[in-house]
C-alpha cells in the first residue's frame, strides 16, 4: 500500500461561498486545521463573482443553495466566465439538496461533498483533487473536469477501500472469447412465454 500523502496547504487560498454561518464555521475550521489558513468567506454568489474577478484562489468551495442564486449556476459561471476557469471547485450539499449531486457534476464541479462535513472525507477528496491529474473537457455544453471515472478510478492509495482498483485477478484460466461469442451474449432475445 502506498504511503498516504502529506499535504502542504501553506500559502494556498480558498474562497468559501456559503450562506449558512454554521456550515461556514465548520468548513473554515476544518480547512484551517489542515493548514489552509488563507480563506475568504462570502455569503452570496454575487460577492463570489466580484471576488474571483479581482483575486486568484486555489480552491473554491460553494454551497449548492445560496441566498441569491443557485450554487450550480455559480459553478457554471465559474467555468464559462471567470478569469481562471480551471480552479478546483467543491460543491457542498445539505441533506435536502441531495438532488444537486448530479447537477453539480454536470455544471462542472470537481467534487461534491455531502454535509455534515467529515474531516476524513474532506482531506481525502482534497488530496485526490489536488494530486490527481484529471483532464478537462470543453464542449459547447460543458466545461469542467472529465466526468468519466470508469477507466482511471481514483489515484493509488486514495480509494475508499484498499481493494479499489488494485485487485489481483490472476492469470486467465480460459481462452479469450471471440467477438461473435460476445455479440451473442449481448444480443436481445425474446423469452418464451411461460
Amino acid at each position: 500500500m502506498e504511503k498516504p500523502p502529506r499535504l502542504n496547504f501553506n500559502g494556498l487560498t480558498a474562497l468559501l461561498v456559503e450562506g449558512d454561518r454554521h456550515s461556514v464555521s465548520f468548513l473554515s475550521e476544518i480547512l484551517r486545521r489542515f493548514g489552509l489558513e488563507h480563506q475568504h468567506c462570502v455569503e452570496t454568489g454575487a460577492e463570489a463573482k466580484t471576488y474571483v474577478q479581482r483575486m486568484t484562489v486555489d480552491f473554491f468551495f460553494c454551497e449548492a443553495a445560496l441566498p441569491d442564486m443557485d450554487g450550480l449556476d455559480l459553478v457554471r459561471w465559474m467555468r464559462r466566465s471567470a478569469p481562471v476557469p480551471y480552479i478546483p471547485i467543491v460543491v457542498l450539499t445539505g441533506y435536502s439538496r441531495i438532488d444537486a449531486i448530479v447537477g453539480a457534476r454536470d455544471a462542472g464541479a470537481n467534487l461534491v461533498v455531502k454535509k455534515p462535513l467529515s474531516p476524513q472525507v474532506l482531506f481525502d477528496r482534497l488530496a485526490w483533487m489536488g494530486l490527481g491529474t484529471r483532464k478537462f473537457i470543453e464542449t459547447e455544453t460543458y466545461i469542467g473536469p472529465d466526468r468519466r471515472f470508469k477507466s482511471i478510478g481514483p489515484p493509488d492509495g486514495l480509494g475508499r477501500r484498499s481493494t479499489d482498483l488494485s485487485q489481483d485477478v490472476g492469470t486467465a484460466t480460459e481462452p479469450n472469447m471471440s467477438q461473435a461469442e460476445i455479440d451473442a451474449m449481448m444480443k436481445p432475445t425474446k423469452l418464451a412465454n411461460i
Partner: protein
Amino acid sequence: MSPQSPKKKARVFLPPSNLKDQLSRAGGKSRDEAVNAAIAGVEMLREKSMGAIELAIEAVEAVAEEGTNGALSEANLKDVLRNADEIVELAGTFRLQNLDAAGRSLCDLVGLLLKSSPYPAQPIAVHARALRLFAPGRPSLSAAQIEIILGELARFRAFFEAKPAAT
C-alpha cells in the same frame, strides 16, 4: 450526427495548474495529523452548535404553532426545510443520531408536502415535538421509546408518500 449540423469537437486538455507541486512541498500534514487536528477544531464548536440546534428547533416549533388553523404556506415549509437541514448538519456533525434521524425525516416530509397544497401543519408539529424530545440536554429515552417516536414519524412520511401529487 448529421452532416447538416456539425458539432464543435470536444477539447480535452490538462488545465494549467501548479496545485500538485504546491501541495507536495516539504512540510505540511499527514492525513492523521490533519484529520485529528480538524476533529479537535470542530469539537471546539460544539457548544455554539448546541445553541444553534436549540434555535433551529424553536424556529420549527414557531412555524408549527403558526399553523394552528391547520395549514401552512409554502414559505413556511421552506423555512422549516432550511432549519431541518441545519439540524441534520449539526446533529450529524456531533453524532446525535436520534436528532439526526428526526431531522432527516422532517426534510423528507417537507419535500413530500411541497408537492401538493394545502400544506398541513400537523405533521410539522409532530416532528417538532420529536425534535424537542431528541434535543441535546434532554433526558435520554429508552430504545423502545425512540423506536416508537421514529416509527410514528415514518408513518407520516408513508402517508404523504402514498398521497398523489397535485397535477
